[in-house]
């Protein structure tokens, strides 16, 4: 009997060790290079990192990528990886101008026709050379149903109008004139160039076997845990100074900071506000901040009473103390927003100023609108903590002018469905400008053709529609600037949105990391970082 018990126990033991043993083998091998850091973390020493020979960059991000097929998804976490793996035809330089990248140069032939001259000798990670055929294949695929999630970025491309002039020259035609087209090609997702052979060979598995022309190539992906990239030695541009990159998904902000402090990671994205001082005070760490191109806004379903009344919307705008809210929730990170176009995007209209807080005026406007005693309404938000927090404060502030509200936190899926059905009343959400053009900031959320899709507030103003259409067509000019500035003014005045906050990217970095410059789009270049 006793023998049986011990056999049983030993059996369980063996089973578990066997299972855990074989399962851990792979990831451990992958993270072998970080072992110097790991042991340091374990001993709790706060001395400088060990060897100068450190050759691996470890980055902590909040979310794992969804897919590394750039046409299959459009989320920041995936773009963040794709940024390191893929290249686009054109990029933005530091003064936000579009310049060549894979394309050595490009010509705008007319408002619908663009011609790109490719660099020669650019190699994909599978050894293939970049040819015009790959570009044509890429854009054809991007505009097919496969590219549904990036259709709003490159959907203008006319798949029938792709013309391969020779191996290194291609003409791309778009369906309607759009001055935002070139900037949209810089999007790390919609604009990246794929290798026809690699995509076809991998089929559905491409999402986990990406092949690009970038400085790093894909090595392994432990879903939900980490992605490992290695340096691509045949990269056409400047070679990275380190040979391996590990991007770990650590959803909890607190945990990211702890890992950064202990040296488990070199760079940690999205540092929680309350950890900023802690990092700043740590001599081994530093904080890098940059305003991001996204705007959080509080808005109304303008089809529903009483929110169809401009006065009610304005009253609410006056009743909300955005400055205090942003300070309370973000405590020094980000800034109260001025308008629907983020400050880093061109034609940002700074003259508008922040929304003013004036309870008396708000009450007066409500009386004018015929609601002297206020009313009751629902506030929707998704489950991002900062948004819930802002709504919680707004709820309190609206109560002061007699508006009783109930907050409903919805999952993203339910949220979108509710918006589509028009079930919403007031809601909190964000909009990010994914390509560096104000068209991207305004067309989706405010054009009447986008109602229920991206125009969550069902805003419908013919004048705004006309201006948005006009702005699309014009090339950059004073005239275009005037249009977008006017648009921002109208929108602020009519208040379908109350802009709340422009977010800020806050990244924690170990002191031995140099050259890290976050991007306002949220996907940051990591390959040109140096480790001292």
């Amino acid at each position: 009997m006793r023998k049986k018990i011990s056999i049983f126990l030993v059996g369980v033991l063996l089973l578990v060790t066997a299972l855990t043993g074989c399962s851990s083998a792979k990831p451990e091998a992958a993270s072998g290079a970080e072992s110097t850091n790991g042991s340091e973390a374990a001993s709790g020493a706060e001395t400088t990192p060990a060897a100068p020979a450190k050759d691996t960059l470890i980055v902590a991000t909040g979310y794992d990528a969804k897919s590394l097929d750039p046409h299959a998804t459009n989320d920041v976490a995936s773009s963040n990886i794709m940024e390191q793996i893929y290249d686009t035809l054109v990029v933005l330089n530091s003064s936000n101008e579009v310049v060549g990248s894979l394309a050595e140069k490009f010509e705008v032939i007319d408002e619908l026709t663009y011609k790109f001259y490719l660099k020669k000798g650019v190699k994909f990670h599978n050894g293939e050379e970049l040819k015009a055929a790959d570009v044509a294949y890429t854009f054809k695929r991007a505009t097919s149903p496969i590219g549904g999630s990036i259709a709003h970025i490159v959907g203008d491309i006319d798949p029938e109008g792709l013309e391969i002039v020779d191996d290194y020259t291609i003409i791309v035609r778009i369906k309607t004139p759009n001055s935002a087209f070139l900037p949209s090609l810089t999007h790390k997702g919609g604009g990246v160039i794929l290798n026809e052979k690699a995509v076809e060979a991998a089929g559905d598995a491409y999402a986990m076997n990406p092949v690009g022309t970038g400085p790093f190539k894909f090595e392994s992906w432990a879903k939900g845990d980490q992605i490992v990239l290695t340096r691509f030695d045949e990269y056409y541009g400047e070679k990275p100074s380190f040979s391996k990159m590990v991007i770990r998904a650590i959803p909890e902000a607190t945990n990211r900071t702890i890992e950064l402090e202990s040296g488990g990671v070199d760079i940690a994205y999205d540092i929680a506000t309350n950890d900023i001082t802690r990092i700043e005070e740590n001599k081994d760490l530093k904080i890098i901040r940059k305003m991001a191109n996204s705007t959080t806004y509080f808005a109304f379903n303008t089809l529903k009473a009483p929110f169809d009344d401009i006065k009610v919307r304005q009253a609410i705008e006056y009743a909300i103390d955005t400055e205090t809210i942003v300070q309370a929730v973000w405590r020094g990170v980000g800034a109260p927003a001025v308008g629907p176009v983020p400050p880093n995007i061109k034609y940002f209209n700074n003259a508008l100023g922040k929304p003013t807080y004036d309870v008396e005026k708000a009450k007066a406007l409500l009386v004018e609108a015929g609601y002297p005693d206020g009313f009751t309404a629902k506030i929707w938000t998704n489950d991002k903590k900062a948004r819930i927090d802002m709504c919680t404060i707004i709820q309190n502030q609206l109560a002061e002018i007699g508006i009783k509200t109930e907050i409903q936190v919805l999952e993203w899926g339910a949220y979108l469905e509710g918006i589509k059905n028009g079930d919403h009343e007031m809601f909190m959400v964000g909009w990010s400008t994914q390509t560096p053009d104000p068209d991207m900031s305004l067309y989706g959320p405010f054009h009447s053709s986008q109602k229920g899709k991206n125009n969550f507030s069902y805003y419908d103003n013919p004048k705004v529609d006309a201006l948005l259409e006009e702005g699309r067509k014009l090339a950059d000019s004073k005239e275009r600037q005037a249009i977008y500035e006017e648009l921002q003014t109208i929108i602020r005045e009519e208040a379908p949105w109350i802009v709340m906050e422009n977010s800020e990217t806050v990244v924690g970095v170990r002191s031995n990391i140099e050259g890290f410059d976050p991007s306002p789009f949220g996907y940051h270049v990591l390959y040109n970082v140096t480790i001292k």
Partner: protein
Amino acid sequence: MLKYFARRILMLIPVILGVAFIVFFLLYITPGDPARIILGDQATEESVLQLREEMGLNDPFFVRFGKYAYNLVVNQDVGKSYVTKRPVWDEIMTVFPATLKLAGSSILLALLIGIPIGIISAIKQYSIFDNVTMLFALIGISMPVFWLGLLLILLFSVKLGWLPSSGYTTLNAMILPAVALGAQSIAIITRMTRSSMLEVIRMDYIRMARSKGQDENKVVFKHALGNALIPIITIAGLQFGRLLGGAVLTESIFSIPGIGRLMVESIKMRDFPVVQGGVLFVAISFSLVNLLVDLLYAYVDPRIKSQYK
């Protein structure tokens, strides 16, 4: 015996279909359009409609379920993820090792700690040791795992800096999650061992063994434990089965990419095939663990073994 297990496995099929139906139904009434979520909030309406058609989301419920069930039973195919386009099976297999490792080390911890303590408690019933242990066990059962996890992180990762707060690849990283998740199982197994031992120790055959002049240690380990093990195995099996699918909170606190988190994320993403496949997988593993427990029974208890013949 073989026949018995074959029958048990066959009996799993209706259960699995039932689970599939429940999950399918729940997801069907869940608000949120998978196509919309896959494509992102800025996608155009045309792309969404196109994708819906392609995914077969426009078919009536029973057509969809029929297709799913057919594929499940006939082809043993649970489909591909909406999001990553990978086979659901692959998705599950990439996260399963983490869960298995977590659940395995927790249950191991529970057995290695719970059984000896439970035995001592039973032998020294009403002693100080027993009272203290039982109090701790009760606290262990009452401790919300997510709170315990946070406290452990606060103490061992933040204040002392001894152990990492996230991850699962290294042994160090596994310690806190295994303790947090295992605490309840330790408590449950300790209590179970104790009460089972107490019940057995009262039995006549124990007195009989003592009346033979047998050594007390042998009475406890040879006669009592052998019999007391049966309910302990049940509860350990049940716990293990639950840990496999129910470690959602622990996985979320310690950033461990396991089945639980995959399920929650997939529900949020409306990645229905993954949710369905994942729940099925958990349900099947749970049923298989139960079967394994029955097998162990037969091994430990000759009375049950003879029933299978």
